[in-house]
């Protein structure tokens, strides 16, 4: 691939849908959805965490759990194991994660696996609030224990609610947490919908966080554009972020639904958005024909992959794409 091609964009080969939650058996907590994939790489397999739901309750409300599937490292389209249980029970009465743990992002640390996850509670004037918690695993990521009953990063003056979508990374011994924070609740046809933006915090230990207090990614489609899944990847001397974005209204449709965007940065603080380079969008037909969202980019055996969601924001599972360009990532 020429340098000119690299500047014009990434090229991805879609490998298709890899995991369909509707085909699993004997797991009442895993009936629908496999949302927000995040990977942990083992010698023989790649563990992909995702969030799923049992059937809705009598009043139509869902809870969400997080779990994993293990993919054959030699053939990532082959599922070799599905978690027997959720990786974490729901939180206690009145806690921030009483009604859901979604999504989750994992990192190895001192022989353990640490998970940063969003916890969901239910409110009265708006449907929910979300905060980011932390849990640790001593069994290679099969089960996790909370570090405490409350969230690990606080709400603050200009991050008032809906802190969600954590992505944990460590660069040069500093921990970085990329996440979304709500800006406002917007009434759309009588229903409150959250508007949120991508944010970042840094930490020496993954526990005590200093927020940057700045929206990282400018909006392009409208002022109330919602952005999610800030997945940051270091390659060729720069930071690259794949994320997803959508309109604030009527976003459960092909026209206004999620698409995947791209930005790059030299210092993690200032980002240049350039969605034209992303190189992946909806297919003409099939499982990802209406929307593509929740990208997670990972490197494996000399190749770069993207796990992502298709129609219905992962209602029918997640899929994979493989970067076909081996050229420089630099713009």
């Amino acid at each position: 691939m020429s340098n000119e091609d690299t500047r014009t964009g990434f090229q991805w080969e879609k490998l298709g849908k890899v995991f369909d939650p509707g085909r699993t058996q004997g797991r009442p907590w895993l009936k629908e959805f496999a949302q927000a994939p995040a990977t942990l790489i083992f010698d023989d397999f790649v563990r992909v965490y995702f969030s799923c739901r049992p059937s809705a309750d009598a009043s139509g409300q869902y809870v969400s759990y997080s779990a994993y599937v293990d993919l054959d490292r030699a053939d990532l389209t082959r599922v070799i194991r599905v978690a027997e249980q959720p990786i974490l029970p729901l939180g206690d009465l009145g806690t921030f994660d009483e009604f859901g743990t979604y999504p989750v992002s994992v990192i190895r640390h001192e022989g353990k696996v640490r998970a940063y996850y969003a916890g969901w509670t239910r409110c009265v004037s708006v449907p929910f609030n979300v905060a980011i918690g932390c849990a640790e695993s001593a069994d290679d990521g099969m089960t996790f224990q909370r570090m405490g009953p409350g969230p690990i990063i606080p709400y603050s003056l200009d991050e008032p609610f809906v802190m969600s979508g954590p992505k944990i990374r460590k660069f040069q011994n500093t921990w970085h947490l990329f996440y979304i924070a709500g800006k406002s609740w917007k009434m759309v046809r009588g229903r409150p919908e959250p508007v949120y933006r991508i944010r970042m915090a840094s930490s020496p230990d993954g526990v005590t966080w200093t927020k940057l207090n700045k929206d990282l990614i400018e909006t392009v489609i409208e002022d109330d554009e919602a952005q999610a899944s800030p997945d940051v990847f270091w390659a060729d001397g720069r930071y690259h972020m794949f994320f997803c974005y959508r309109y604030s209204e009527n976003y459960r449709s092909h026209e206004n639904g999620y698409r995947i965007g791209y930005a790059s940065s030299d210092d993690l603080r200032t980002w240049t958005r350039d969605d034209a380079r992303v190189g992946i969008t909806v297919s003409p037909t099939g499982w990802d024909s209406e929307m593509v969202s929740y990208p997670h980019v990972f490197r494996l055996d000399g190749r770069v992959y993207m796990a992502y969601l298709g129609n219905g924001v992962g209602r029918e599972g997640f899929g994979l794409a493989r970067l076909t360009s081996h050229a420089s990532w630099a713009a």
Partner: protein
Amino acid sequence: MIKTRLGKVFDPTEHTLPQNCKEFAQSPQTLEFDDFTRVYFSTRSLDQGGQTFRSHMAFTDMSKDFSCVLRVSTQPVLPLGSLGSFDEHGIFPMSVIRHENQVWGYTCGWNRRASVSVDTAIGLVVSDDEGTTFRRLGPGPILGPSLNEPFLVGDAFVLKTDGMFHMWYMFGQRWKRETEAATPDRVYKIGHATSMDGIDWVKEDGVQILPDRLGIDECQALPSVIWFGGRYHMVFCYRDVHGFRTDPSKGYRIGYATSTDLVDWTRDDDALGFQTEAETWDAEMQCYPHLTVSAGTPYLLYNGNAFGRYGFGAALLALT
């Protein structure tokens, strides 16, 4: 310790308050002026439907000895928070300090939850007109839940001393039901945080600074601290976890502790010497206490029966 009981000194039903508030003057907290004392309190309006309340801040200016009401606030001190915010459904209480020609208010904002009744967090609001009106620094809280304080962070009381800001506040430990069919009740304790600028706070995160008197489910709230006579004095209120609304033997009482270093506190509720007379305004309950030094004299302000529905009272203290 209590030298003279002054009785009830403010009754909200005798005044016209903004925002259609008629009852409740809860959690009196003072701002001293040269010739009067401004007492902020939380009052309530009825929600649409009339089944639930919203708490709003208001104030009354009183003579320095709390014998006369000079005026009450005629406009909203602070509007409630926007949709989905931590202080959307009420602000109760607010602790005020003077700081660099402004008045800062540390609010306790309330928002309703589905599985439990409510959550709270601490906000910061600023006044440039001597505390007549306040504006938010942002829509979110300055102190909310953390790893070991999972909910119900509120009731901040802030004291500036030796170039440092200290905050004592309430944090929730758990929700529990008295019976399987009962609505959940909350357990909360008093914690401590410090700050260099009054905005960014470092919590002790889950450390309860006062021992329990009623067992591990004792609820402790509304700390208030003054320096007087060579040491720090704290009042707060405490109660049983269940039955506190209807059974006077389980309702709020006022607690008392002292410290010389703001680190170690010695609790001695009996030293306060609180006594009530049967069938008076504060016979069944004493809650939401506040300490202030007015014209050189220490006073205790507090609410009585029914969580302050019909006002607050005062007592003159002899602190040592």
